[in-house]
Structure formats: C-alpha cells, structure tokens
C-alpha cells in the first residue's frame, strides 16, 4: 500500500487541510498524528467561553471525533513525533516507531512562552494558556475574590483578564512595554482597551517590569517589581507571546527563520514537506512574517490540500483576526506592519470606533471595535485594492458600503 500523506500536529491547520482534501475527493490516504489526546479543536474560545465554563469540551472540536474515521482518515492522538528522516521519508514517534510518508505536512503550531524557573515560572499557581489541558488546570482556580496577576498585555492576557473580572476575581495586569498591545496595534487601539479594562476594574500597569515571582509554602504568592514593590497574587497567568514549534524541522535540516520557511505553496526547503499555521513563516510584502491566527492556519491548510490536488494556487490570503473582551467585539482585517499613519473613525456610540492603518496612501489594516461595518466593508475595500483617503474614512458621514461597492 502507498505511504500516506502524514500530518504532524492536530490543530486548525491540520483540520482545514483534511477537510479540503476530503471535500476535493482526493483519494490519497491520510494519517493525522497529534500530541494531545484530542482531535483538532478551536483554540480561540479557550481564553473566552471555555474558560468561563460556557462551552463544553466537545463543542471546541472542529470536527467530531468520529468524523475522521468516517472520512477514512487514520488518526493517532496522544502520540509525539520525535524526529523526521527526510532521506527515508519517515517520521519517528516517541516510542521509536518509524512511519513512512509520501508527503509530510507540519502543523506543529506554537507554544506559549513561559517565565524562566529562576524567576519562579515553574511554581505551582503559575499558568500559561494555549491548550485544553492548560485551561482544565487553571479554570478551577478562577474563583471570585481571588487575586489574579496577569503578566503581559497582549490579546491572551487581556481576554483572560476580562473572563477573570466576569468571574469576580481581583485582577492586576502588568505590561513591560509603554502600553498594552504595543507590538500588535496602534496607540488608539491600546487606549480603547486600557479604558475598557479600567472601567471593568482591572488594575492595569504599563511600563512595569517584574523581577521575579514570589513563593509562599511552595506556591506562588505574588511578584516583585523592578521598583521593589510587591504585588500579591493567588495565581499568575503568563501571557508573554508564543514561539513556533520548529525543533523537528530544525533537526531535519529544514530552513527556518522565526518559523519553518515556506514558499507561496506552503512548501518547505524540502519539496516533500509542507508546513502550515503558527509554525511557519513566509514572505509578504518583502518581509518574512509569521502569524498566529485561525485565519492563517485554516487558509494555509486549505491551500496545501489544493496544491496536492494539482490546483494552480498560491498563498496570498488577507489576514483577519478577532478578540472578544467583555461586551467588546474586536475585529481586525489586514496587517498593519510598517504603517506610518492611523486615523480613527468614530462609531455610533462611545464604545464603538475603528482604527485605520496606512502606509503612505495605502490602506493596510483596520481594527474595528464594536464596529462590524468598518470590518466588513473595510475588508471589501482592502480586497478590492482601493485606498480611500484617511480623511474620507475618518468622516463618520462617509458611507462605507458605498465606498466598498463603488
């Protein structure tokens, strides 16, 4: 029997690849290998509804567990791949088993960065947030009245802070940069979320560095700041970004550059090996970028299925992203990388507005806060290559729909 297409890593990219492969009627056999005990699941709800306890685990699954067998897809969950042998077209599992592949697809994802153990990163009561297991460990600790310290003002930290406030924990969030979301958004967006969280009772401290976590009786009890100040905490969530899982690829000699380098076909430096999602990096507008998003994982997985089916396609999808915090729905379209100007379009209410990013005259991206029209029509405007003047979009009287359709 012919060797299967082997997919290593059972996340969004893998699920999208398999879904498209099946939908295209491609008869090549598939084997999905995942380290976690679960079939591919949605990660975004982990820091939102799943942490709140509003979504049962099975509803996170992108396809039901039985679906894979029904489609003739072989699965091995709870299985780690330790090595790739590109010369033999084999992967080696942690139990030493060698599995032949025809083509290999790496969907190994990313992992949450943690604090070094010297700083207290390994203490009981310190959590990172990336997997079902992370939430299952952390959720029982999310009890009203307890003190949560969030380290890092990125989307994960802010979403967890919002859930914690909804569950009536006392929340302090520290960010070492001058402002929350500094790496990913303009000051206007940071301002919006600072105000949102402050209004919900989060103590938000920017430009604040921590030296180390403190322990009492073997468990975390707080943090010491660079200023010498002590912040008490019953539990700590570390949300300081993610790193791509590239160890397998590096050891196999694949080119890596902040992720496994892929071309526009999502092919690595070994033409028999593809990569998709958080683990890979690719060239966009002359820059090597890596995205941690559902959109990117889903679209790249989908693209590889089309490439294997012989379609003439290349990866050029427009990025989009979302975050839910309290009653704010943030929707982002485009990539704001390299922007040199932003304008704010006011919304219908105090809690709604959108931030439009430009480089020169070119519209790059939009952050829409409770402003779905800016997101939906803005997406059409960017897709169609139109570049309305910043003054035009900042004018609330401008009809975005007309701009998009015109």
């Amino acid at each position, binding site marked *: 029997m012919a060797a299967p297409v082997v997919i290593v890593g059972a996340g969004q990219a893998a699920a999208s690849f398999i879904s498209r492969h099946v939908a295209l009627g491609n008869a090549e056999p598939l084997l999905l290998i995942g380290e976690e005990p679960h079939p591919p699941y949605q990660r975004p709800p982990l820091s939102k509804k799943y942490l709140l306890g509003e979504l049962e685990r099975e509803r996170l699954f992108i*396809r039901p567990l039985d679906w894979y067998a029904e489609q003739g897809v072989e699965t091995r969950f709870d299985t780690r791949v330790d090595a790739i042998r590109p010369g033999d077209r084999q992967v080696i599992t942690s139990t030493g088993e060698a599995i032949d592949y025809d083509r290999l697809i790496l969907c190994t994802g990313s992992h949450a960065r943690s604090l070094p153990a010297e700083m207290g990163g390994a203490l009981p009561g310190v959590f990172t947030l990336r997997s079902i297991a992370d939430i299952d460990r952390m959720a029982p600790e999310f009890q009203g009245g307890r003190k949560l310290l969030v380290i890092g003002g990125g989307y994960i930290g802010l979403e967890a802070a919002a859930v914690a406030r909804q569950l009536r924990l006392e929340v302090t969030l520290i960010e070492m940069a001058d402002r929350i979301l500094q790496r990913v958004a303009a000051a206007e967006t940071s301002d919006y979320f600072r105000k949102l969280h402050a209004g919900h009772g989060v103590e938000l401290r920017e430009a604040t560095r921590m030296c180390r976590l403190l322990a009492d009786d073997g468990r975390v009890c707080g943090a010491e700041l660079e200023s010498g100040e002590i912040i008490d905490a019953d539990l700590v969530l570390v949300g300081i970004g993610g790193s791509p899982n590239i160890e397998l690829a590096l050891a196999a000699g694949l080119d890596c550059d902040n992720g496994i380098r892929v071309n526009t076909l999502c092919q690595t430096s070994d033409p028999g090996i593809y990569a998709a999602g958080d683990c890979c990096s690719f060239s966009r507008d002359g820059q090597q970028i890596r995205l941690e998003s*559902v959109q990117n994982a889903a679209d790249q997985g989908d693209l590889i299925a089309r490439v294997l089916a012989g379609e003439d396609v290349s990866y050029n999808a427009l990025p989009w992203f979302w975050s839910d915090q309290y009653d704010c*729905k943030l*929707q982002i379209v485009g990539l704001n990388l390299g922007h040199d100007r932003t304008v704010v379009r006011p919304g219908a209410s105090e809690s709604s507005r959108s931030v439009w990013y430009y480089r020169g005259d070119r519209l790059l991206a939009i952050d829409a806060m409770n402003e779905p029209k800016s*997101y939906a029509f803005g997406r059409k405007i960017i897709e169609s290559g139109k570049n309305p003047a910043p003054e035009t979009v900042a004018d609330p009287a401008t009809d975005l729909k007309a701009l998009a359709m015109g």
Partner: protein
Amino acid sequence: MANITWKMEDGSEISADVKDGLNLMEAATANNVPHIEGECGGCLSCATCHVFVDPEWFARTGEVDDIEDTMLEMTDVEREDNSRLSCQIIASPELDGLVLHVPEPE
C-alpha cells in the same frame, strides 16, 4: 432535537438530527455539509456559514441582529432576503423539518 436538511445546488441533500442548543454551522460541519466552513467558530467574523433559509421557515429561525446583518454583506455568494449565517440559528424542536439551501461559491 430537530431534523435539519441541507440542500446543495447539485440537488444532493444531507439530513441530520441536531441536538437542541447546537448552532446549525456546528451541525453542518459535523455532518460534512460542503461549503459551510465556520472558520471563526460562530463569533460573527468570517461569514463562511452562509445559507438560504427555505422561505416558509425564515421567520421561525429568529431575528437577524445588526452584526449578522452587516456580516451578511461579506458572503462569497451574494446575500438575498432569506440569507442567514447558520452559526446564528440555534436548533430547537420548533425547527424540526427545517430546510436550508447551501450556496456554492464559484
């Protein structure tokens, strides 16, 4: 429980019993209905679960709120009066027998 039928443009059909409380995007992906993707997991950000509701059922599928109404502007196949994002339709006994038509993007 509600028995839901998805009708494709090529005339094929898929029917399934859907548990109360599930949304019909989840039900569609669980039952392998083509062209329903639901990339955003049902949080009104992707518009990839667009369906046309059989007109006699439309009113019974619930209200279209402002966000859904806006997101319906981004569907691959252009919206019509009976368009819904199926992640916003929640299965209940009142929807037993519901028929959804699945648009096929070019």
